[in-house]
């Protein structure tokens, strides 16, 4: 319920969040990037200028003068130097070939700048790179040698055509560049060179430019693309981070409710003011143990025995009609602190059924909580120490969960288990459904399945144990736990052959459960009838065709009776001290009621077993003694904390508070 109460905004709603901002950032970044790449001139004009024009600060008006053609502008600086080739010259005279045809100032104006220190710079429109090539020819003054890209020539020439003269102007090995291949016939404007009379210098510069063009490929075209991609990526990041921020805020707004870990020390029961109760079911939903019910529009405490003393119902009541009142202290639970550490033995932690809080789900929570708490109290592990940091007794739900938490915390831990992993689950009736928690108590760790049969849960746990390589030693029964002088624990265990094994650990988690000590039937049992009294039901199928008497009416008893009732020809009779259902899950109760109604199970209330004889059980009801014929008696009247074991570990029974 609590989990449902805070809906996570679905990705549908979040998909567009921050998209405007992302788009705006991408747009601004794109323009900024272009400004960087092209310069302000290029940003506002048709494109950037190459190095010589930029250095000479030609500007727009340098070339673009009103009333004058571009060619005239070129000549005004560079002087007239028409082409040396007759065909080109003829084209130029017809106006079909101008300066800009080969030297497109904003798009393809490439070349090599030879500096006086011998360095050569390859430049293009909007870009220049220091080639690192040191030419043999060192120019007396810095010169620029323009390179015309093949693209300018291919309007007329075709380098692939045999006999086309342009092939002679291209360098070998640069076919991959395509139209960007530089042409290296520098004799286009020879007359200009001869008039100036610096022939040797010119030849040297040409040679050096050829050398540079051969080693450094052109790279000028499309330099804007990386900037655009970058800007787009930035937009994506902004958009993504907006959504991540929202998720973070949402998680902060709705903190996960604390899982229940510790039962209360005193008996508590809810009290309901019937004149103000709305009958809204809020408390019924909040209660994890189905204690409350709504009858005639008002909540009532239907199964007081199951009340764990938590105040969830009180917290959920919308108008304060329900108050939890305190009663007698509970005296058959070991006392633990809020972190599940034993009050009597510091460093010893308890988890699972031992603490008196039922349900597998709680055991899982407690195992993890105890280990997380104790990890904070542990000193940093000294290097080379072989001593265990944590020893876990019992590999049930609490033990496995503790071992998983220890792995998560990086502790050196080991689990000792007297029989096999999850033996308590194995002993459940075959096919038992394990689940049913109406409240959304968050489950720590990964052990929980939403709804599963015993077999499914067991399979999942065994998978987890294997996957995480948990150190679990089966068949070791812990006989003693002592505290050493340094605060460490010395644990003694017996293996199946009866050999003693010793362990040392800094902390111990006791998660051995109560299964080992079921509450016994305190009536005379004839010696020859002892074999027909059972305290656990492993597989109902083994009782097929028999007459079975089930003693008790708790969840375990009801589930066992139902499982037995499903077997062919099995006659099941439930013997129960009280009248009506005082405890148990609503689902079990309704299923059992139906089975009783349909005649599949007989329910004898207000009845007490007086004696078990071979093939017979004496049952007293309202003073009258009945003899019921039966082949087996299944006793399911709860379990006791294993006090003898606990006391050996130093945990003392709490004395009732009134005598303190």
């Amino acid at each position, binding site marked *: 319920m609590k989990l*449902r109460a805070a809906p996570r905004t679905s990705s549908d709603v979040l998909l567009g969040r921050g998209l405007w901002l992302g788009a705006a950032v991408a747009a601004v970044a794109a*323009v900024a990037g272009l400004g960087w790449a092209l310069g302000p001139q290029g940003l506002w004009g048709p494109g950037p200028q190459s190095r010589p024009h930029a250095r000479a600060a030609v500007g727009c008006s340098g070339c673009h003068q009103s009333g004058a053609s571009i060619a005239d502008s070129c000549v005004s600086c560079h002087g007239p130097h028409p082409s040396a080739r007759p065909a080109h010259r003829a084209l130029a005279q017809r106006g079909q070939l101008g300066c800009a045809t080969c030297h497109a100032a904003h798009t393809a104006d490439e070349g090599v700048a030879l500096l006086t220190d011998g360095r050569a710079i390859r430049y293009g429109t909007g*870009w220049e790179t220091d080639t690192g090539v040191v030419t043999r020819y060192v120019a007396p003054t810095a010169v620029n040698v323009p390179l015309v890209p093949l693209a300018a020539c291919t309007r007329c020439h075709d380098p692939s055509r045999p006999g086309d003269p342009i092939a002679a102007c291209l360098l070998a090995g640069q076919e991959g560049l395509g139209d960007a291949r530089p042409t290296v016939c520098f004799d286009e404007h020879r007359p200009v060179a001869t008039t100036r009379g610096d022939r040797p210098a010119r030849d040297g510069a040409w040679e050096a430019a050829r050398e540079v063009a051969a080693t450094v490929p052109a790279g000028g075209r499309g330099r804007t693309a990386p900037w655009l991609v970058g800007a787009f990526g930035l*937009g994506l990041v902004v958009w993504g981070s907006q959504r991540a921020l929202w998720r973070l805020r949402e998680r902060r707004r709705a903190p996960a409710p604390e899982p229940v870990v510790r039962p209360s020390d005193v008996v508590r029961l809810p009290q309901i003011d019937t004149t103000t109760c709305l009958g809204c079911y809020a408390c019924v939903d909040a209660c994890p143990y189905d204690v409350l019910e709504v009858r005639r529009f008002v909540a009532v405490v239907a199964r007081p025995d199951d009340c764990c003393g938590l105040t969830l119902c009180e917290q959920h009541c919308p108008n304060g009609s329900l108050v939890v009142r305190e009663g007698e202290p509970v005296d058959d639970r070991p006392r633990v602190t809020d972190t599940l550490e034993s009050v009597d033995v510091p460093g010893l932690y308890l988890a699972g059924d031992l603490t008196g809080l039922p349900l597998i789900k709680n055991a899982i929570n407690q195992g993890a909580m105890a280990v997380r708490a104790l990890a904070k109290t542990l000193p940093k592990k000294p290097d080379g120490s072989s001593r265990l940091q944590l020893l876990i007794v019992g590999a049930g739900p609490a033990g496995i969960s503790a071992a998983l938490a220890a792995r998560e915390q990086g502790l050196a831990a080991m689990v000792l288990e007297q029989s096999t992993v999850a033996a308590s689950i194995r002993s459940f009736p075959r096919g038992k459904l394990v689940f049913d928690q109406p409240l959304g108590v968050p489950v720590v760790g990964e052990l929980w399945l939403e709804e599963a049969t015993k077999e499914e849960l067991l399979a*999942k746990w065994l998978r987890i144990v294997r996957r995480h390589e948990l150190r679990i030693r089966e068949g070791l029964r812990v006989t003693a736990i002592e505290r050493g002088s340094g605060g460490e624990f010395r644990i003694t265990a017996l293996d199946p052959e009866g050999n003693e094994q010793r362990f040392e650990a800094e902390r111990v988690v006791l998660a051995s459960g109560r299964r080992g000590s079921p509450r016994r039937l305190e009536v005379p049992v004839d010696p020859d009838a002892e074999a027909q009294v059972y305290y656990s039901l492993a597989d109902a199928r083994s009782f097929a065709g028999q007459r079975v008497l089930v003693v008790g009416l708790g969840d375990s008893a009801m589930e066992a009776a139902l499982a037995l009732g499903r077997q062919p020809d099995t006659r099941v009779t439930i013997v129960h001290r009280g009248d009506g259902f005082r405890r148990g899950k609503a689902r079990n109760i309704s299923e059992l009621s139906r089975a009783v109604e349909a005649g599949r199970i007989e329910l004898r209330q207000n009845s007490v077993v007086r004696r078990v004889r071979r093939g017979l059980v004496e049952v007293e009801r309202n003073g009258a003694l009945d003899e019921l014929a039966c082949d087996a008696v299944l006793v399911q009247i709860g379990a006791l904390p294993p006090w003898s074991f606990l006391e050996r570990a130093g945990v003392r029974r709490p004395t009732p508070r009134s005598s303190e």
Partner: protein
Amino acid sequence: MTEPAGIPDEVFASPLLRSLDERARRDVARASRVLELGAGEPAYGVGDRADTLFVVLRGSVRLEAVRRGEDRASTMRVARRGDSFGEEATVPGASRLLSAWADEPATIAEVPVTVLQRARVRGGATADSVERDERAALRAAARDVLDSSALGRELGRDELDMLLDRAEWKHHRRGERVFSQGDDAPFALVIAGGLLQLQSEHDGRVRVCGYLARGDVAGDDDVLAGRKHSLSAVAQGDLFALALPRAALQSAVDRCPALLAGLGRVAVERGEAQAGIVGEFERGATQHVFRDLYRLQVARSLLVIEQDSCVRCGHCAWACAETHGESHLVRRGDKIVTQLSSTGAPASLLLPNSCQHCESAACMVDCPTGAIGREPRGEVFIRAELCTGCAACVRACPWDNVQMVPRPGAPPAAARAETAVGTSALVAAKCDLCRDWQAPACVSACPTGSILRVDPSRDFSELAALFHGPGPTAGGGAPGRTEKRRARALTLASGLGLVLVGLGLGLQQAGVVEPSRGVGLLAGVVALPACLVLAGYGFFKRGVRRWLPRRERGLRATLAERAPAPRSRVAPQLDVHVVLGLATLALGALHGGFGGRPSTSGALGLVFWALSLTGLVGIAAYRTLPRWLTRIERRGLLPEDFPRERERVFDRLYRAASGKSELVKVLAERLLLPYARSPLGWLGLVLGRRTLREEEARLHARIDAMLEGRGGDQREGLTDLVRIVVELRALPGRRVLTLALRGLVPVHVLLAGMFLLLLLLHVASALGGGR
């Protein structure tokens, strides 16, 4: 009908109200009203919602019903001065069993039953008197139930009374098993409310045999024959029924032998009618509808999303969140395949988490403060100011369609005063069909028009046949034809657009057209406003809060008639966007070619082409991917659900494999697991255009070929495993396709942002420089 003020004390003289104390009378009087009926004027009709009971103050009221198996109405009783009627309302969620109309001009008092019941318990009345009153009311209701059922026809007054003495009310929650095949049959059930599914079970496989509703009798044949139950019965919704013990039924049959034949005939007729419909559709692909028939039976305005055209953009949920603060629509849930009456074509429909405005709304019944109300047109809504945040409705809704959300305008939890009524931090919220607006936001904002609000019992062909009998489906095929025409026009426009783009690009690259003069310049100039209109599409649909037209308050109550089905407002705009986008692409190609020069216009060109590419890919994806995705999904999932879903399916796989025969385990390990884990397996599934069901058949064929007929008896559980591994194999495909569909829009929007600013620069420099 007129309404004089005040409730006369006379009302409280009625046997049902006599035990109320002063406080309770005040509460009841405040909630009740007096009605004047002219002669022949009805108080209510059969099937109306029953939540009030009536006391006659003057005149008389005749109660009639058509009994099961009859075709004429017969008078059940006449209520005169001081009598009460309409007690069936004491059964929660009930609808009227009889129709009531004034024999002569009558004055009647109408008392809301929930108020009465609560007042009775809260007041100082003793437990005994409360129980007595309630028993009396229930007995009156039981009489009406029996009288209007098939039993009532054959039985006389005395026999009916005798049965009534022995009858007992039973209530079963949704999903509860009422009786099981092979159980003893101690009593028969006369159903007063809800839906009961009869099914036979063999080896854990369930076969639905029929449905029983109000007025039907269940299990009577087995009871009378003294047999064990031959079928199982499961309550599909909250079920209220009268249990008639065997002895009572037997003695009734002994006294009226005709009863047996009558009951038998009704059962046979009903069975045949249903078997025809359910059976026929079960053979086809539409059996999904019957998986949760109750849901579809009670839904009055069910939100469905057509999966074959839904592009999973989530605009529906987003628009809902925009208008209500929190989205009341979560786009995940079950999928059904059914035939729509309007188009006659089978459609894959997603039933997302959104209120379906049930006829007998469980949330409404369970609300302790009456905060949940209903509009005359059927919209169920929550009054936040009355909500105590108790979440009873959240619990009551079987489909999780009510959520708790922070109370609007509430101070943070820490600053809140101690719990007092009405100030809880959370309130319940759910879809109210945007009752303050003229049309639901989700429907209006859907860019593909895939969201429909339907009344399943009318709009789904097979349900219409089941509930209202077979007949010509309403509506004709008009919407289907328009839909097809629209699709064809769009395809044509896309083709034409692409040809134009090619032409423009060719002309530009050949140097025939230049951007700065003539046709090229003209293309650029024309493209500019087109670009702005294209961008406007995005701005418009995001502003749903502003353009969604509000409904006038006063108008709402008077609109008793059904408004025409709301249509999407954004869908036509998307069509325009697509067509205009293609045209702009052609113009852009003509104006600027490929671009790519190191200049602003070059950069603009690059972005333009990237933007167009995402647009073109988007058109293609929107046309094809939803269909592909629908083929390989069983449930609707959001992208964030996939990791968990994978885990869930794996859990299911291990569960399905545990406890199976050695053969199945070996098969699972050698064939099925590698099959499920194959990294690119989904690609084959998607490109092979196979549905999950076809893929299952293929896998079964593969297994059969491997086994060559061996292991016949060890194959138990194999079908389940195959189902699961096929789902697992499809899962990455669903992820990729969902991502592909949803990833395009953000990319397109980001590029559009860049494009617009660059376009601005380009225009500025073109105008400023003139070059």
